[in-house]
């Protein structure tokens, strides 16, 4: 027990991150189910409006800050040193501190339920609704203080990862040879270092408005409510890519291994990630298209937002080209990776719709947005994560996940997710606005919402199957061996699970696939590229 409490080994800290994320994922999922139950039919009164508002505020905040970021950080912290042939993270104590800051932030946030004052102004907490005049309870204070801790933790772990990648690479591993997951984790970490301070600063400003009568966002005293939106989204849109890029990295590792081919166009995939990172700082106003900000101003952000579809699209094509001509093995991990391609494409395309300003002027803040973000964050990030868990679980635990149960959970999750979310596109186009605790009995509203709720229930069942698989396989799974997938990156050259010292001998790296070179001395990569 204490060996976990005081762990500074990157593998243990990584596992702690993932476990805490799983715990909060279940909490966030329950919040979603309360909402879906309340929306199952028109004019229901299962929960009060206040409770409903707390549910979606906590669901959004939890899924972004307590699930997506920590689980991706966990994968990064666990895998990056192994993939670059390092024996430990560069700043192990900072790594552990970051995790505990993150966890206590989450605990503080959830403690607000016990005080009866959970935050209820949305995960974006727009001013002046978040000001004391309109949200007098302590919920917003818990929210801001918790996020401050989480922001600190995120920045700390990002710095740890950057330094590790910069200084810990095995001899011969230049930045052109690091695995794509490491590339994308690096880009993400740099983005965190630049984006999270904007959030932290705006939280401090909000707290001083609430407690010191600073009036930054109070128009009656010369403040500007829109200032909050600019602050929040200049963090908030890079944030979307922060929780998507490492998922891209996972897909870029998994698809090649199960297609038995190297990634198609490594330099393009890596460079397009950098392009996404740069562009992501110039698109935040597309969250504010419904504010009168001036046509030319909006057009610039529309152009940048559309442009970001290009480097994202090239990745999709690269992944398909990687599979093309391969010998594809359909493990559960690969099933999730292939489903990711389709689900994420749907989310990407509806994203281009929002970049098209006149479309945004109708559908923003409707269920079309809800559908869009869920195709990006669930169809994208979560599907990639599920692929990643099935792929790396043998390394983490030494045991294979059950393939049969894995396939079952895959199909149940795919059916549940799409049933729950696809119909929300139609609801949005029919005029159902988001964040409403109930709705009148308009044509189709009740039917489509009921379908969505049923889909959500199916999805929960699928997630439970996945959890059962994890729990069972942890104890009864087949022994994995060092390299169950016949893979090519360095983590598979270590025992499963790796020992405290990752590598008995630091390997020398001459190409992007050191283990391929080892297994194919007749045709190593470094002779071809």
């Amino acid at each position, binding site marked *: 027990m204490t060996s976990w409490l005081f762990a500074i080994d990157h593998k243990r800290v990584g596992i702690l991150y993932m476990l805490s994320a799983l715990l909060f994922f279940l909490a966030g999922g329950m919040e979603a189910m309360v909402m879906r139950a309340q929306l199952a039919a028109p004019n229901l009164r299962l929960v009060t409006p206040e409770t409903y508002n707390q549910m979606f505020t906590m669901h959004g905040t939890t899924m972004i800050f307590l699930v997506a970021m920590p689980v991706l950080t966990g994968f990064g912290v666990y895998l990056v040193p192994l993939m670059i042939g390092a024996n430990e993270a560069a700043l192990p104590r900072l790594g552990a501190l970051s995790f505990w800051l993150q966890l206590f932030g989450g605990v503080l946030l959830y403690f607000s339920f016990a005080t009866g004052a959970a935050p209820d102004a949305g995960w974006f907490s727009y001013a*002046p609704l978040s000001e004391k005049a309109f949200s007098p309870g302590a919920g917003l204070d818990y929210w801001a203080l918790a996020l401050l801790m989480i922001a600190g933790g995120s920045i700390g772990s990002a710095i740890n990862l950057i330094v590790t990648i910069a200084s810990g690479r095995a001899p011969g591993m230049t930045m052109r040879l690091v695995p794509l997951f490491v590339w994308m984790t690096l880009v993400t970490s740099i983005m965190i270092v630049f984006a999270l301070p904007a959030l932290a600063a705006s939280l401090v400003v909000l707290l001083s408005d609430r407690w010191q009568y600073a009036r930054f966002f109070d128009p009656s005293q010369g403040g500007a*409510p829109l200032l909050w939106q600019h602050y929040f989204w200049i963090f908030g849109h890079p944030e979307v890519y922060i929780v998507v890029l490492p998922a891209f990295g996972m897909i870029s590792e998994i698809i090649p291994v199960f297609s038995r081919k190297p990634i198609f166009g490594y330099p393009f995939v890596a460079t397009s990630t950098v392009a996404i990172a740069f562009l992501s700082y110039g698109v935040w106003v597309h969250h504010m298209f419904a504010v009168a900000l001036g046509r030319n101003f909006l057009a610039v952000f529309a152009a940048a937002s559309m442009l970001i579809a290009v480097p994202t699209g090239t990745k999709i094509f690269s992944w398909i080209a990687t599979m093309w001509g391969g010998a594809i093995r359909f493990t559960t991990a690969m099933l999730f990776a292939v489903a990711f391609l389709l689900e994420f494409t749907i989310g990407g395309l509806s994203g281009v719709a929002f970049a098209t300003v006149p479309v945004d002027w109708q559908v923003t803040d409707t269920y079309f947005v809800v559908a869009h973000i869920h195709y990006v964050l669930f169809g994208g990030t979560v599907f990639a994560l599920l692929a990643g868990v099935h792929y790396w679980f043998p390394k983490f635990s030494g045991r294979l996940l059950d393939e049969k149960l894995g396939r079952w959970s895959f199909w149940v999750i795919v059916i549940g997710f799409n049933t729950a979310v696809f119909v929300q596109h139609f609801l949005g186009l029919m005029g159902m606005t988001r964040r409403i605790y109930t709705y009148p009995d308009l044509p189709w509203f009740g039917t489509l919402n009921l379908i969505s709720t049923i889909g959500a229930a199916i999805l929960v069942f699928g997630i439970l199957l996945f959890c059962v698989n994890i729990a069972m396989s942890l104890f009864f799974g087949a022994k994995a061996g060092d390299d169950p997938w016949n893979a090519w990156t360095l983590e598979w050259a270590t025992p499963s699970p790796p020992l405290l010292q990752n590598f008995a001998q630091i390997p020398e790296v001459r190409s992007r696939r050191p283990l391929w070179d080892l297994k194919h001395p007749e045709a190593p990569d470094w002779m071809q590229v």
Partner: protein
Amino acid sequence: MLAIAALVFLIVAAGVVFTVVRYRSRGKTVEPRQIFGSRKLEMLWTVTPLVVITGLFVVAVRAMVAIDAPQDSGRQPDLVIIAHQWWWEARYPNGVVVPWDIHIPASRRLLARIESADVIHDFWVPELARKMDAVPGRPSYIWLEADTPGTYAGTCSEFCGAQHAWMRYRVIAEPEASFEAWLKMEARGMFNDAPAADERLFIGKCGQCHDLALGKGPSLAHLASRETLGGGVMRNTPENLMLWLTDPQAAKPGNRMPNTPLTAEERRTLFGYLESLR
């Protein structure tokens, strides 16, 4: 737009499905040919989307210019729409103020100013105008135009607190002549110069908020002819109206109306008065 999106999705889906079916390993143990990339192909699938989105951008900007009203024209707006937690009011140049039901003349492009009295709301009548945020301290302008007379549904489209769900209103577009007649009639005001007993009771008990000069709560003019109460939260039936008089927090939880102590007699009088407001 939808066609382009559907086409792109079909291309990707077809690519994925074809690839995964065609290139299944089927138990092969020999590694396939190792291909590392192709500059030509990569350029192709970078430039082609670039061309598509450039086209989309041009279309988008043209549409923006056509839809969007000038924010700084200096022109007097034809009506001012003010959002409140959780109700709407419309103010007309001749001083008429109405809650919930916004009347406009059909077939005329109106310049409407959108304001907020408290937090950020959003004015959205999908069939008549673009969506526009109502930001406190920062009025903005939209074109509001109905091609044909009729009743159009509107709602608030920015989360604004406990009762965001029930800010549903109607925009009623009428032929020019009947709109003018309506406006003239409204200009006479709600109260009589020599109020009767029930009207005096209303002013005394409810006037602090439901008096338009103060504007704290919505006017109750024409209450009896409204379809719904509280922005759609319930149908306008005698039982529901009585519920509002007895326990407004049960009728619309979280709304700004306090429970007002009334005797049964007073409640009956007020009920009768409100039912007479056609």
